């Protein structure tokens, strides 16, 4: 595998993204050092490439990405993976509001806690949150799978139209148009597969404890 290290220290956002785009022509893996929570890192990246961000990213990391596998060792700001269509975005730390907002495909994973409106208007794909998620999680969701391993606060699934929200922890309240159902054995099997794929280790009995939130039929 051909690797290339980009030192983002002192780079403007556009310069960094231009460098990333250019280097994907010649390398399979890019390592970005000193990202300093810059915004829009990897915006619109469509190449089949691995990206390692050593540190934290700012707003809109991986927005409109189609294909890259992005791994962030630190935290991310608001709207991580916004409108992504294909690929992976894995955040080891925490993320702000709107993680996985509007994604059409691919997988967004945040190992820690996230802010509010996680997965809002998502149309497809999978969002997995290892910690807690805030206000209006799954707001206006139109498709896809949103999995929360921690607790969620008020108005989960507010005005949800399609798609499914799974919550392992406590649900403070449901939003309008959202109902809670029991998971089926098929749901539990799917959860087991996708969570195992990304290294989340749960006890067998936990899978039966997931709450399933969908739209009111």
């Amino acid at each position, binding site marked *: 595998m051909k690797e290339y290290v980009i030192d983002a220290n002192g780079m403007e956002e556009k310069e960094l993204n231009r460098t990333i785009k250019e280097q994907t022509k010649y390398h399979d893996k890019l390592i970005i050092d000193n990202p*300093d*929570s*810059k*915004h829009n890192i990897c915006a619109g990246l469509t190449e089949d490439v691995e990206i390692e961000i050593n540190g*934290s990213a*700012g*707003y809109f990391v991986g927005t409109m990405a189609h294909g890259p596998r992005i791994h962030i060792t*630190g*935290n991310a*700001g*608001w*709207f991580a993976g916004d409108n992504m269509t294909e690929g992976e975005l894995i955040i080891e*730390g*925490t993320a*702000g*509001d*709107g993680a996985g907002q509007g994604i059409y495909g691919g997988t967004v994973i945040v190992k820690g*806690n*996230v*802010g*509010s*409106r996680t997965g809002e*208007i998502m149309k497809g794909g999978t969002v997995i949150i290892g910690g807690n998620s*805030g*206000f209006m999680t799954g707001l*206006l969701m139109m498709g896809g799978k949103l999995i929360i391993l921690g607790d969620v*606060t008020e108005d989960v699934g507010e*005005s949800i139209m399609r798609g499914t929200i799974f919550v392992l922890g406590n649900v403070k309240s449901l939003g309008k148009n959202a109902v809670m159902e029991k998971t089926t054995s098929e749901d539990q099997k799917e959860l087991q597969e996708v969570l195992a794929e990304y290294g989340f280790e749960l006890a067998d009995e936990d899978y039966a404890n997931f709450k399933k939130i969908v739209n009111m039929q």
Partner: protein
Amino acid sequence: MAYVRVFTDHFIGGRKMCGIAGVIYKDKKTHPVGEALTSMLESLQHRGPDSAGYAIYGSLDFPKNYYQLNIEVKRKRGTLDNLKSLLNQISPIFEEQLIESVGGSDIYKCKIALDEFSLLKPCINEIDDLENVRFINGSHSFEMIKDTGKVKDIAERFDVPSRMGTHGIGHTRFATESGVDRYHAHPYQSYIIPDITVVHNGQITNYWKIRDPLERKGHTFESFNDTECIVHYMADKLNQGYKLEEALDQAVIDLDGPFSILVGTPNGIGIAKDKLGLRPGVMVETDEIFAVASEEMALHDVTDSDEIEQIAPGETRAYTI
């Protein structure tokens, strides 16, 4: 329709419109707060290019009832002399400095003494009645520095990095209402109680509902800016005996619109975020500091910790020393 508004605010408001930052050192000793806030505000420069400002607490070691005044003075013949003549009628001038600034005006900084705090507001009113002069602020325990332009230039112009203090708040402004001038740069200060300041990212949509009762109580407003309204609101609550945390909690209930408010007092800082969480706010707390900012990048200027917390919708956080 409500959702359209929520989305518009969330998409646009989160990315633009002002940066806020604050830091407090838990050991109550003075630290290079000016340098820390300058780094934080430079990291948030992209959120607000119009003006920037600081309130650095613990930076003035004044005897009781001594005040530092910052007054904008137009470069017109006789203006400064008129100002000094008026000031000398109010109090001896103990120290003075003229700081060259932009826009055809300079900042006249001086130290005066009053018999009591209640005389500060009448003093301000008298100064504001002078031609070609605008009162910027008067403080006892903190230093306010604010001006139009970029953080780097303002920091250099006023030698901000040399300022020591126990805590402080700062702001980069993306003007969405009111003029782009020195007065409308944040922080705003209220004189209902001594030395309270506010910086703010957002808009207060029930402005008149908040302002009316304050005016009926006799509090005066100098502008139609919503941040001025917030600082009077907070000062009024603290004046009624609310603790900082309680005043912030009440602000979340009473104020409508998207906002992140950061308040500075002589012994603490505190943040409140609107009920829908439409403006950003993150915080970090270590053994040494408590710091808040609009974005994580600013927190990394004052700590190596990655334990960054998102401030939730309707949440308030405060730290006092």
